[in-house]
């Protein structure tokens, strides 16, 4: 068992994402890849390659060129046939954390504790901290209308600081920029940079209602990555607790409209339900895991639920 990665090494400002109390609460969590991942060094995750380990994989007939060290002499003694014995190879994990820093992620509903981007960053930081703690390599990508910062996957002891600095990047607040790039283009760009198959964890509010917005996830999945999507939603987005007449403004553009919140609530919730159902269906069809993360829920609770549900599904 690997030692927990020391939280104290995190820098001061980014350390707000990962304080001592949080690391203590998530110290017992482990990340396991559900699919075979490519790694250079030995680790705790299943590899697509056969190698030397204690986990027996299969017997097969010897073919010229096979490593003679793999011959099972006992089997040869029993049935006079050359049989090769294969074992599972275990390797380390390359986890890529994708953080959406678009303007819509700057929403906190008047309560800083539920800031969407901060919450998403905290979730990813905690996940990265767990991975680094068990010796896996962790990389990070922050994007808004385009890729803002990329951090290759490393498992060095001082890598957590760099990781947190990427995750602590501020959200683009300039609504006049509009939605110049779609979620799809960002994910496509990212999929070209994540390299060997590993684990991809996306934290985003997925507020791109284009039908092809999540299509790149299927490409990541096809490349052999374990893909997981954390749908970051603020309670006010989910419950629409507003009352009376209000002027609603778009978080990513200068659009606005007036509406009576009481009368529009039912229709809005219906639209939201449709939207979230579509997100889940698109993620699942792309081979990705999908989970909703309300920003008013404790990070460790969301993370534990995420890892537990993934384990039940054979993911971790």
């Amino acid at each position: 068992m690997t030692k927990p990665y020391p939280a104290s090494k995190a820098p001061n400002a980014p350390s707000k994402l990962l304080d001592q109390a949080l690391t203590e609460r998530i110290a017992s969590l482990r990340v396991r890849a559900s699919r075979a991942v490519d790694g250079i060094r030995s680790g705790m995750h299943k590899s697509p390659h056969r190698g030397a380990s204690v986990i027996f994989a299969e017997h097969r007939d010897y073919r010229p060129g096979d490593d003679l060290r793999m011959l099972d002499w006992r089997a040869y003694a029993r049935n006079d046939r050359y049989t090769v014995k294969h074992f599972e190879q275990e390797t380390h994990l390359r986890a890529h954390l994708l953080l959406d820093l678009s303007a819509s992620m700057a929403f906190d509903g008047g309560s800083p504790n539920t800031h969407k981007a901060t919450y998403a960053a905290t979730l990813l930081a905690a996940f990265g901290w767990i991975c680094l703690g068990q010796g896996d390599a962790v990389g990070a990508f922050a994007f808004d209308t385009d890729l803002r910062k990329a951090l290759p996957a490393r498992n060095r002891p001082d890598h957590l600081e760099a990781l947190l600095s990427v995750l602590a990047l501020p959200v683009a607040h300039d609504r006049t920029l509009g939605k110049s790039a779609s979620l799809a283009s960002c994910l496509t760009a990212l999929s070209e940079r994540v390299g060997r198959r590993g684990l991809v964890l996306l934290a985003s509010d997925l507020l791109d209602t284009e039908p092809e917005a999540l299509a790149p996830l299927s490409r990541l999945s096809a490349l052999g990555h374990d893909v997981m999507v954390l749908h970051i939603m603020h309670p006010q987005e989910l419950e629409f607790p507003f009352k009376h007449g209000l002027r609603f403004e778009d978080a990513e553009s200068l659009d606005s409209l007036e509406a009576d919140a009481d009368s529009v609530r039912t229709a809005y919730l219906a639209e939201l339900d449709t939207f979230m159902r579509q997100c889940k269906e698109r993620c699942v069809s792309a081979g990705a895991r999908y989970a909703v993360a309300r920003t008013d829920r404790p990070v460790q609770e969301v993370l534990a639920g995420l890892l537990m549900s993934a384990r039940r599904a054979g993911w971790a």
Partner: protein
Amino acid sequence: MGLETPLALLGLLGIVIPLVVHRMRNRELPRVVLPTFALLSRALARSQSKRAFTDLLLLVVRIAVIAAAVIALAAPYVRSRLRFGDGRRANVAIVIDDSLSMARREGGSSLIEAERTRAREVLAALPDGSEVSVVLAGKPARVLIPLTRDVSNAARTLERAPLSAVRSNDLGQALELALRQQHRGVLAERRVLVLSDFARHTALNPAELKGFELEGAAISFERIGTAPDKPNLYVAHAHATADPTRPNETSIAIEIRSTGSDLDGEGLQARVEVEVNGKVASRGSAPFERGVAKTVLHIPSPPASETTQAVVRIVTDDALAADNQASIVLGDADAVRLLLVNGDPQPASRNDELYYVTRALALMPPLELTLHTQTVDALSLAHVDLSGSDVVILANVPAPEAALAKRLVDFVEAGGGLIIAAGPRVDAAAYNARLGGVLPSHVRGSARCNDLHFALGSSPGALPEGLAGLREVRSKERLLIEPQAQLESLLSYEDELPALVARNQGEGRCLLLAASLDTEYGDLPLRPGFLPLLAAMIRDAAGATAAARANVAPGDSITLSAPRPDHFVEVRAPGGQTQRFWGQQPAEAPKFSATDALGVFEIRAGAAANEHAAKLKATFVVAPPQDESDLTPGVVPELGADVQPIAEPVTVHVPFAPWLWLAVFGLVVLEGVLRVRRRWAV
């Protein structure tokens, strides 16, 4: 139109309230940044235009609510001239003339409907608490709505009342009835409104009014309708007779008269047609000469065994259509076939047994009975086919032989009527022996009596006239009829011995008269009640009804023969409506009074055992009263100076604030509905 409190209109400034509220809704609203703005925008997109329209509609409705409420508070009113009276409570009697002349059509509706409309206007103009009554002036005058304080209910009753203008006119009696109705009221202010066309024939002499107890009642006469612009033709006479010069044809002599215009100089002709069984059988025309046109039309004679109705109709267009036709009954299937058996024929006519009977029957008015009479002597009776008779009268006839007696019994059993009248030749023992099966009671012979008078028996129902005309009858001798407990006694002597008894036997009936039909036993034939008694006995024995070929005036009552128990008599009106009277115990002669229709009425009789096989017994014709055909406008009666006319209608303020409050209520409901719709529209 005006306002009682115009200052309340200042409240119209309140209209700005919804405008301000509407504007305030559009002011700068609190801003909320919403990341899921696209979803909200999509949710709103569906209903945005509908909501905008609903918002505008809500604004209009709210403004309308305030405006209507303010105007209602200003108490608006319109000036309206009352259609009757001065708006004070009063005891009002309305006399509606429903005589035939009111059936004239003018301006698309009949005058009687115009009367109804006017009467409803009067009722609508009366304030609550008024007393009203409505009297119809068709002869005989009658009360349509007795005095009531429920004016609205009276208006509904008047609206639904079937008013048929077919009768003659009796305005005088109607006015008297109206005044009597008013005397039942408590309000001192009394008004009588008489509605009529006041044609020349209107029977109202103002001088008669002085005899009424007017007691300060104000009376006004309103003429309904104007003078007709066309002459009025009517069938004054239509008579059908067999024409000896035209075998198998019936001649119908028709006389048509005109009123209202002299047609002689215009060369106009009255065109008439005769319709038999719904088909035109003959047409013709006749020139007018001194207002009279006469012609004779011929139609194929109907079989004598059938009763056929013919309608003589004037085709020429005239002022009043209701009097343009007259109905005639052809054939005599409904006549009572009477067989008179003379037991004591005498060459000296006054001594003849049937002298008084035949003369009485000759005087029988057609309204009473239509008879086919055959007379035979006692010896010839054995050779007569009884099936050709409905009623057989044995007048002082010796007891028939056994064979003949059996035929008489069978005749009664089969439904015939047998009347046995007393006389010296009546052998009591032989009668008891041979006709005991049908005799109402045993006969003990004859006995002298000392000027006994008649009295009503225990079951006098078959005698509609009762003892009228019979009280002074003095009997010197009589047949002794044995009194029995169940005996149906129509007449008795003052010593309570039966004088006229009856008995149902089989389908027929037998009557036994203790007096003679001549003057041998008393002076019965000389008394005025003899003819009605004879008619009642024949009707009762025949089981027939009052058969009348003569015209009956609309509204007259017809007395029918009392049907036996389990038997009925029904009258079918020209329109097909049927009224049925069932026999009662004791027998009671029913009266038919629904004669408010012009044409031929059929009287049928039948038994409960075979209700659908009612047999035609008689017919009578209800003809239009000819005096009503003169439509020349007469003079509206003028009252003396001591009788005040009803005051001229006054102008009153009619508030319509209640309607505005009703509108406010409706608008508030609409506003609520719109608000709900607005919410559910998203």
